């Protein structure tokens, strides 16, 4: 039953994507308010799916590829719905809506079911650790999306080629503030998430397992996020340079994830 709710949510995220795409293709000013309703209903359906999953399996959908992706999609959709409620930054959802849809569709295809493997690391420690880490990644994605649009908008304004990007997307300042806010949120959440994981391993396992690829990847992601933050707040870098660091960092870490998954395989990864 939970899969039906997830599928309905995915359809609505796809509908929102189409609405964004049509407005963008027509070079209309900003996204229409209807996406706020569509994404809110999608989010509601997504939450119903998660509740049903939780009720059925007795645990939140945080472990295993399918459940993890569905949870990550929820956080992206949450940001999408939040932005859709603002008229100022609604059109940033142009990148968030397809991401939420894609994550959820992949989750549905691989199966949103518990792994069934017995894990030592369970309970509220695990829930908080994973939730905060996912919040970190989702926020970073929002920051990178806003930064990417910032770079496109900057390019159009600088080179006086005022097309669909100029018309559809928000002002530079709005994108910059959104990116900054999401970056700070992402870094704070990921730091807390990793710290919880670290504290647990030190307390119960005596130390970090440095050979664990997900630990290495998480620390790499945290370092890249720290660098993106430093590019924004440290030194005399412009917002454009900070945006480049942000997008590049997110791109490299995402690429590293896919490469690592291909080489190492599913067993060692939470996502």
């Amino acid at each position, binding site marked *: 039953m939970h899969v039906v709710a997830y599928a309905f949510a995915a359809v609505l995220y796809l509908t929102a994507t189409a609405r964004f795409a049509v407005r963008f293709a027509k070079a*209309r*000013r900003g996204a229409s308010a209807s996406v706020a309703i569509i994404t809110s209903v999608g989010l509601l359906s997504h939450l119903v799916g998660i509740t049903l999953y939780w009720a059925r399996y007795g645990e939140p959908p945080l472990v295993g590829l399918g459940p993890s992706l569905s949870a990550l999609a929820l956080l992206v959709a949450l940001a999408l719905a939040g932005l859709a409620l603002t008229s*100022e930054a609604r059109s940033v959802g142009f990148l968030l809506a397809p991401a939420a849809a894609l994550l959820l569709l992949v989750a549905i295809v691989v199966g949103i079911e518990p792994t069934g493997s017995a894990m030592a690391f369970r309970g509220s420690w695990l829930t908080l650790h994973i939730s905060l880490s996912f919040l970190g990644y989702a926020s970073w994605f929002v920051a990178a999306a806003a930064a990417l649009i910032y770079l496109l*908008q900057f390019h159009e*304004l*600088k080179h*006086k080629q*005022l097309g669909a990007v*100029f018309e559809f997307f*928000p*002002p*530079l*300042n*709005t994108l910059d503030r959104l990116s900054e806010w999401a970056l700070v949120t992402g870094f704070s959440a990921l730091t807390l998430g990793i710290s919880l994981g670290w504290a647990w391993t030190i307390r119960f396992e005596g130390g970090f397992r440095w050979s664990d690829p997900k630990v290495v990847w998480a620390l790499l992601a945290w370092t890249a996020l720290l660098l993106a933050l430093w590019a924004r707040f440290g030194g*005399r*870098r*412009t*917002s*454009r340079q900070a945006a480049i660091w942000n997008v590049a960092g997110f791109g490299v870490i995402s690429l590293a994830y896919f490469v690592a998954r291909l080489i190492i395989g599913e067993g060692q990864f939470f996502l």
Partner: protein
Amino acid sequence: MPFAVVGVNHRTAPIEVRERFAFDTTEVPDVLAHVLENRGVAEVALISTCNRTEFYLHVSDSEMAVTHVLKTLERQAGELPKPAERYLYVNRSKDAVEHLYRVASGLDSMVLGEVQIQGQVRDAYAVARSLTGQRQAVRAVFNRLFQSALSVGGRVRSETRLSEGAASVPSAAVELARKIFGSLRGRRGMVIGAGDMGELTLQCLVDEGVASVMVASRNMLRAQKVAEKYGGAAVAFSDFWDELPKMDIVVTSTAAPHAMVTLGEFRRRMPRKLKAPLFVIDIAIPRDVEPEIGELPNVFLYSVDDLQQIVDASFERRQTEVPKAEAIIRDEVDKFWRWYSGLQAVPFIRQLRGRVEAVRQTELDHALSKLGHLSESDRQRVERLTRDLLQKVLHQPTARMRAAAEDGREHDILVAARYLFGMEEDGTGEEEQE
């Protein structure tokens, strides 16, 4: 022909003629009252802006009313280069309604799709509505007409892109500034060379919330005058470089024969790397700012040609929206006209209901006088029964009469109805419409 519009606008007369026809806001109530003195006029409103002076009339005698308004306008204009009728136009009936809808939508504006006209129509309606008693200028028909005109204006703007994009060089500058900074509230701006265009751009920026304004000009008196007007400060021309690093937006419009803001000086005086964006609007010819400055990080430099290109592109886009806007207007004119035609049946329906009610009352009184044994509640029940019965019997024919009138078949239907109910001798004066 129940409606007429009489007036002059930017298409029919140059500015020096238009301003002769214009009425001051304070004069409008008296002018409306004067027009209403003519017994051919039932309702009147006046739109008087820099681009148009138009009287909208709901008339019982079109010729009498229009002649009266033409004379009023001629008297207002006085001596003109050509006879007044060469500048004036008269639209009647459905065309007058369509004209008002086009005006409210910005289709008839000098700058296609401009939005200020919507507010000007609203103000004209409000002034006309403020007249009461003997001088009542707006009644049911004009209430409906002007409210629908405002709603049509809103519909055109929301359903088409007629009002999107910059319509002038200063508004293009403001649009760009908003795309860089978002809200301009609290931003700092400087105008170098306080020419007319520079001042106009400054005014647009101040209207958008630019708070701290500096004016640098070789003519210090002029700089002080402009700065004072916009709540800013004047600065000596030689000192503008000292202020430049503090600015978000700079407008240059000097008459200098060479660039005032050179790359070398910019590099020397400004921070090596600008952390915040600097928007430079160079509307001078020849240019005040060396174009290489636009290549520096975080500097957005737009010349008057760049801005004009934006305006041209926006105008082209607006033009493509005209057919869509016209379709909306045609649709709304038809709706209004159906409603207005439906009113033709109202006087007859009122008379019919009055007559039937009189019959009911007489027959009820007669019956009740013979039914003295009925209790008070029973008498009320009988009365309610007769009323409900007639309501139900009359509902269908009156609804159909209205519908027929809305479809333009009021004449045949009303003649037949008068014959059937024996009411041929009863007139249906237009004055009963309200």
